[in-house]
């Protein structure tokens, strides 16, 4: 009898606990679901379905893929940034149908053949051949020729990042640079304003793997810019303001309407479908200058992997 009573108590207690828990859940639900008690059918917790699409027409190839080479020129004020040395080189693929994207970083010191000019660092291709020259050089190395080459200088990158209110990146390792960032960047999630984004993208000597790690940091900055655009794409005027800033700060022969379409495609890139790689190589020395002898076969494999659908199956 005693055991029966104890068992009964347990059941009652359990039920009471269950009721209390349910009550709490309902109370919380009532707090977060307005008017729940008035019109229960009006307040159901469901995933809102969304239809989304973008057609960039002839800006993409027949598979809906766009390849853009983003070049950060080291031009100083007054210099022609289209014919200086490209300090940052990122080959970016966007699949406008699947909303996937890839970025393949190319160390600027990669030692390659530049037709008509012999062997040199790949960034010299901008100096010799302008945007087309650097596009060709990267195309030969990776096996994917960019359709568009966007060239900017670091001051302009600062302006563009400031125009969107700064970015957030996850920094894998703390580092500093006496010239560009004496106080350094902390490890972890950090906010970068325009200047910080520039410094984060440029610092090399403080990084363990030098040019390779810098290239990876540039990809972090690009991904963060995309994330910011995506998060704010529905804010009135946000994308238009970004495009206006791009028109002011970027050298491109694309008409403004096409840039607007491109911006919409970028805003729709799904971060969960984004992957980045950096072309690897061996560190060497040519005439006293530090260079990277890129692993061409591996670079081509990356290009083969992503060429058709802008989707990398390996790397980060």
């Amino acid at each position, binding site marked *: 009898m005693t055991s029966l009573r104890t068992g009964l108590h347990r059941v009652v207690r359990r039920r009471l606990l269950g009721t209390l828990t349910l009550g709490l859940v309902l109370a919380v639900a009532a707090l977060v679901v307005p008017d729940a008690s008035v019109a229960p059918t009006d307040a159901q917790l469901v995933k809102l379905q969304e239809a989304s699409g973008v057609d*960039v027409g002839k800006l993409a190839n027949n598979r809906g893929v766009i390849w853009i080479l983003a070049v950060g020129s080291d031009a100083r004020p007054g210099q022609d940034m289209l014919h200086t040395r490209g300090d940052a080189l990122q080959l970016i693929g966007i699949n406008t149908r699947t909303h996937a994207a890839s970025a393949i970083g190319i160390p600027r010191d990669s030692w390659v053949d530049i037709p008509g000019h012999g062997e040199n660092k790949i960034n010299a291709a901008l100096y010799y051949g302008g945007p087309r020259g650097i596009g060709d050089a990267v195309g030969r190395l990776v096996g994917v020729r960019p359709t568009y080459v966007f060239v900017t200088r670091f001051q302009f990158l600062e302006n563009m990042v400031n125009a969107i209110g700064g970015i957030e990146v996850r920094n894998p390792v703390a580092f500093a640079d006496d010239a560009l960032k004496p106080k350094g960047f902390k490890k972890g999630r950090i906010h970068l304003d325009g200047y910080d984004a520039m410094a984060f993208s440029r610092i090399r000597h403080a990084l363990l793997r030098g040019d390779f790690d810098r290239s990876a940091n540039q990809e972090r900055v690009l991904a963060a810019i995309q994330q910011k655009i995506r998060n704010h794409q529905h804010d009135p005027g946000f994308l238009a303001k970004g495009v206006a800033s791009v028109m002011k700060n970027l050298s491109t022969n694309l008409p403004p309407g096409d840039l607007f379409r491109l911006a919409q495609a970028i805003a729709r890139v799904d971060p969960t479908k984004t992957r980045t790689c950096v072309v690897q190589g061996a560190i060497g020395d040519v005439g006293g200058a530090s260079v990277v002898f890129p692993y061409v076969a591996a670079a081509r494999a990356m290009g083969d992997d992503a060429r058709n659908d802008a989707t990398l199956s390996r790397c980060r």
Partner: protein
Amino acid sequence: MSTSLERCLPAARAAVVLLVAALALSGCGGSDKTTPRPPSTPAAPTVRIKPTVEHVTGRLKPKARRAITARVGKLVDAWYDAAYVGGDYPRPASGFTHAFPGFTPGAAAQARQSLDLMSNAGIGSKIDGVTPITKGVKLDVLAVKGWPVGVTARVWLSFRTHGSLVSRQLVRGQLDLAKIDKDWKVFAFTITKTRRPLAGATPSSGAGESPTPSQGATS
């Protein structure tokens, strides 16, 4: 795809006003000019779209502002009509394949992949009319040298459905437009569509299903 009034009229008990409104908006009564209207029936409500420019980046000439406002308003209204509030009901899903006038071919093809959201394809066979409640569009314009080069149209449309499915539907989101081949076209979209059953409403057609809870909030 009825054309006569008799075929359009639901066999139901909904209020006369609603029926007339639904008929007028679904175009069902168009061919039947001789059919007498009940003398007490008010004129069918006309819900007009009033496009406004909310945000401009760059300088936009007043003349260009007026022109782009009118053009985009017309394009958005054409989509509202073709996809949701115009045409005959009941209508099968196949009747919505041309629901995207003003879209680029690529954008229309992508919209057809989400036809239930981008039109009434998912409910067209369950209803015999719609009554628009509100239509709206606000424009964010990117302008260069006084002329628009890109437009984001923030859109919202709400309407009632009649027939087996009595509900209030809300379509909202954005359409992005650019001048393509000398005309403004929708090249991108982000749209949601939510559905609420109307409290106390009974289906105007006896054989119909009432919306299930999962249908009650989103389609």
